[in-house]
């Protein structure tokens, strides 16, 4: 059962990612990205990351991608102009990519022992309670720092995007 | 302690005060300081000599350890013995007289305080040279007087010819100094010291060298140095050009004191020459050749100062001839008498030039006997002395030399006699052309002021009577050779030669003034060769000066400096720019290219980590 979920989600994720890269219009790419994120959220749940899975859905897919879509609509971004891609890129690039990925796969397979397996429910330590406990004790400082970081980002974004004051 | 150091320090103080503050001092104050310092020095010399008594042995004062490096130990020492005493008296005495004369002569010139500052500096160095107790202190003075000579020859620095003459003097001197330095190196290597006492006592124990050996080499190299400083063949070419300087300079430096430094040095090193007969013979030959050559040139010159300059070269040749035949005492004797009459000749010439407002050409002079009688009388005394008129100082010293030469080699004696005839001839030629006959110039001559006439008078007295200071006898404890008995026949010959010269000059220039021109025309190209100083300057120019200059321009300047050094320096810059130009293509502004580089870098780092064993 776990295997089925994994394969489905993996397939969706890879398909959406490929679609993201291959689509010309940015809005299509944005929707594909949302698809990737949703499938990844399911995988997180499979891995026992309750909090992080839902955080992914709420923050990433829900907020960041919405921001992306807003900007695309604001800019009225159109489809990319098609350039003549050279033959070499297609002939060399795709096999190279597959070869590279195959190599990586083999590499990972050989390094990770076969006994490491993932089973849904094998570990439940990723709950909100456990997550929060560690976040606010061991990782308090990074937490505070990132909040300042977000503050800076907000101020920066506002300053950058505001209308000129004449 | 007799405070020998005060002797040179008085003029040094004069130099410092006049040099640094002279611009703001009045002429009177400058005069007082300049002359006062030299006079003080002279008085101190007299006082010290009287206090030192008979001076059988040298009196040495050690001041401080100057160089102390490994085996080389040189102290700054001054020493006085009888030879030094003669030189000290001549330098300070004649120096004082010339300083007094210069007040009058330079009164209308610019750069007044600078002139006296340089003169005082020269006195300081000359006295250091004479007082030095080792070769290095002597060399300090040697170089210093060379420097002052350059400064004073080029005193009228706005004239190109003066600048060139100064440079020529300095460069030619340097060639001589090179020989001197080599001699000092040899001395140090073989004797471990440069101190006179040490070296000479060690040399005295060595056997006489019959073939070319160490002492001969040292003797020849010392002679090279002396030839540079005392204007002998082949390094005499600077002295006639040095007449560009003011006349007091010509009198003091290029007649009485600096040019005798070479003779002094040879006389001081007589022990070396006694043990190296070959070197001594070379000294004699050089002296004789120079004497003859300069005398022949002097007979043809028309510039009064040039005549006396060649006369100086010729007389210095006599001094070296004396040393070369072993009669060092008579060489030193001639230094003294030559200082008297040659300084007088130059100062007198200066008086004539001053009277004629700058005219130096003998052909523009004439009939001045009645106009400037005092000058005429003093120059007459000097001309008598240099011609060897009986019982003048010049007669005494020249006779001493010629007698010693005859003992050594009769051939040299006869050549010397002929040269003394020529000497008398050209000096009296100058006298007759200047003071006799009809007035050829267009000037209004006026007699010189008293301040200039007084030194002339004193020197005239010394020229006539100065021979009675029996120097050779007094210098016996040092040089050890007994002075010659008077051989009346030889004396008569030399006197006769002098009188013949005077007579011929009278004949050619007073009785029948047309003769010299006809002789000159008859001799044609020979005359022209002699008139052009045997083209020696042109020869040096072609063989040495031009090749060096052109070689330096093409090879060193254009080749090495511009080509190699500038090339390297510029090349570094060009290379840096080239590499930068290549590297800057990475900055294409193309963001995707940057992204690609980032990815490539990341892959590289990962690869490196993997290769090195992976992250732990």
């Amino acid at each position, binding site marked *: 059962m776990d295997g*089925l979920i994994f394969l489905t989600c993996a397939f969706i994720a890879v398909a959406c990612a490929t679609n993201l*890269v291959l689509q010309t219009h940015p809005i299509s790419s944005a929707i594909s990205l949302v698809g990737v994120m949703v499938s*990844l959220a399911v995988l997180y749940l499979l891995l026992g990351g309750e909090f992080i899975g839902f955080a992914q859905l709420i923050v990433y897919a829900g907020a960041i991608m919405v921001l992306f879509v807003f900007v695309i609509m604001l800019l009225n971004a159109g489809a990319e102009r098609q350039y003549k891609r050279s033959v070499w890129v297609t002939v060399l690039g795709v096999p190279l990519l597959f070869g590279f990925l195959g190599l990586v796969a083999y590499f990972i397979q050989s390094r990770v022992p076969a006994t490491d397996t*993932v089973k849904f429910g094998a570990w439940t330590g990723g709950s909100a309670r456990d997550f929060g406990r560690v976040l606010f004790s061991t990782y308090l400082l990074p937490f505070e720092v990132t909040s300042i970081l977000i503050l800076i980002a907000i101020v920066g974004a506002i300053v950058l*995007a505001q209308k000129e004051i004449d | 302690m007799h405070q020998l150091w005060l002797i040179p320090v008085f003029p040094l103080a004069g130099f410092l005060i006049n040099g640094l503050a002279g611009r703001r001092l009045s002429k009177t104050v400058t005069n007082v300081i300049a002359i006062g310092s030299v006079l003080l020095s002279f008085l101190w010399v007299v006082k010290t000599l009287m206090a030192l008594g008979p001076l059988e042995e040298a009196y040495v004062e050690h001041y401080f350890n100057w160089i102390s490096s490994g085996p080389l130990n040189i102290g700054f020492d001054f020493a006085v013995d009888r030879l030094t005493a003669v030189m000290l008296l001549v330098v300070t005495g004649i120096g004082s007289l010339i300083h007094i004369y210069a007040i009058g002569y330079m009164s209308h010139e610019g750069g007044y305080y600078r002139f006296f500052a340089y003169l005082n500096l020269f006195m300081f160095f000359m006295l250091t040279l004479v007082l030095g107790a080792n070769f290095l202190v002597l060399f300090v003075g040697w170089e210093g007087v060379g420097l002052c000579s350059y400064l004073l020859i080029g005193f009228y620095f706005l004239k190109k010819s003066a600048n060139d003459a100064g440079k020529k003097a300095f460069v030619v001197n340097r060639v001589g100094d090179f020989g001197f330095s080599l001699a000092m190196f040899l001395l140090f290597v073989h004797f471990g010291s440069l101190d006179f006492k040490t070296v000479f006592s060690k040399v005295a124990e060595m056997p006489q060298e019959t073939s070319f050996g160490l002492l001969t080499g040292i003797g020849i190299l010392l002679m090279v140095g002396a030839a540079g400083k005392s204007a002998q063949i082949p390094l005499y070419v600077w002295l006639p050009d040095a007449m560009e300087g003011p006349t007091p300079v010509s009198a003091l430096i290029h007649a009485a004191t600096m040019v005798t430094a070479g003779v002094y040095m040879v006389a001081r090193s007589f022990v070396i020459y006694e043990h190296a007969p070959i070197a001594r013979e070379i000294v004699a030959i050089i002296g004789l050749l120079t004497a003859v050559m300069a005398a022949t040139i002097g007979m043809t010159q028309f510039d009064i100062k040039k005549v006396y300059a060649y006369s100086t070269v010729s007389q210095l040749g006599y001094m070296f001839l004396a040393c070369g035949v072993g009669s060092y005492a008579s060489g030193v004797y001639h230094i003294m008498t030559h200082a008297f009459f040659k300084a007088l000749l130059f100062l007198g010439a200066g008086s004539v030039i001053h009277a004629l407002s700058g005219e130096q050409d003998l052909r523009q002079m004439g009939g001045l006997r009645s106009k400037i009688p005092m000058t005429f009388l003093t120059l007459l005394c000097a001309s008598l002395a240099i011609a060897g008129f009986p019982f003048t100082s010049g007669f005494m010293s020249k006779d001493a030399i010629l007698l010693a030469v005859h003992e050594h080699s009769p051939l040299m004696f006869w050549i010397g006699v002929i040269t003394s005839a020529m000497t008398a001839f050209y000096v009296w030629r100058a006298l007759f052309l200047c003071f006799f006959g009809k007035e050829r110039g267009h000037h209004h001559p006026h007699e010189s002021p008293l301040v200039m006439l007084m030194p002339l008078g004193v020197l005239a007295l010394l020229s006539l009577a100065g021979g009675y200071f029996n120097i050779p006898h007094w210098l016996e404890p040092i040089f050890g050779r007994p002075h010659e008995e008077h051989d009346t026949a030889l004396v008569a010959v030399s006197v006769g030669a002098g009188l013949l010269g005077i007579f011929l000059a009278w004949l050619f220039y007073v009785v029948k003034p047309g003769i010299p021109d006809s002789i000159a025309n008859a001799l044609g190209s020979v005359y022209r060769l002699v008139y052009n100083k045997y083209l020696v300057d042109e020869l040096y120019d072609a063989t040495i000066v031009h090749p060096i200059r052109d070689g330096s321009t093409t090879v060193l300047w254009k080749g090495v400096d511009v080509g190699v050094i500038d090339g390297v320096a510029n090349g570094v810059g060009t290379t840096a720019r080239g590499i930068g130009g290549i590297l800057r293509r990475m900055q294409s502004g193309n963001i995707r290219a940057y992204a690609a580089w980032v990815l490539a870098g990341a892959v590289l780092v990962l690869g490196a980590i993997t290769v090195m064993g992976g992250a732990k």
Partner: protein
Amino acid sequence: MPATVPLAWFLILSAVLFSIGAAGFLLRRSILTVFMCIELMLNAVNLSFISFAHRWKAVDGHIFSFFVMVVAAAEAAVGLAIILTVFKNRNTLEIDEVSSLKL
């Protein structure tokens, strides 16, 4: 269908997603698409972290992933603001046109 999924598969998936993101990042011309590829890469890395957190039974991997998300958010905000400004000035969304910083 295996009942348990080998950990290696998760890692391989992460690698694949990362590579796709990298390829897109290099090959696409629109700024926005490039940005989205960056987000894809970040997600791939998150997956890797979570997988290892499961392997080692430690929640620190989740925390790290959480911080990655926070930073990604901040970065997205500022980056999009910059894109807006660039668009305002140059009226183009192609990164090849934004090349005036060349030497």
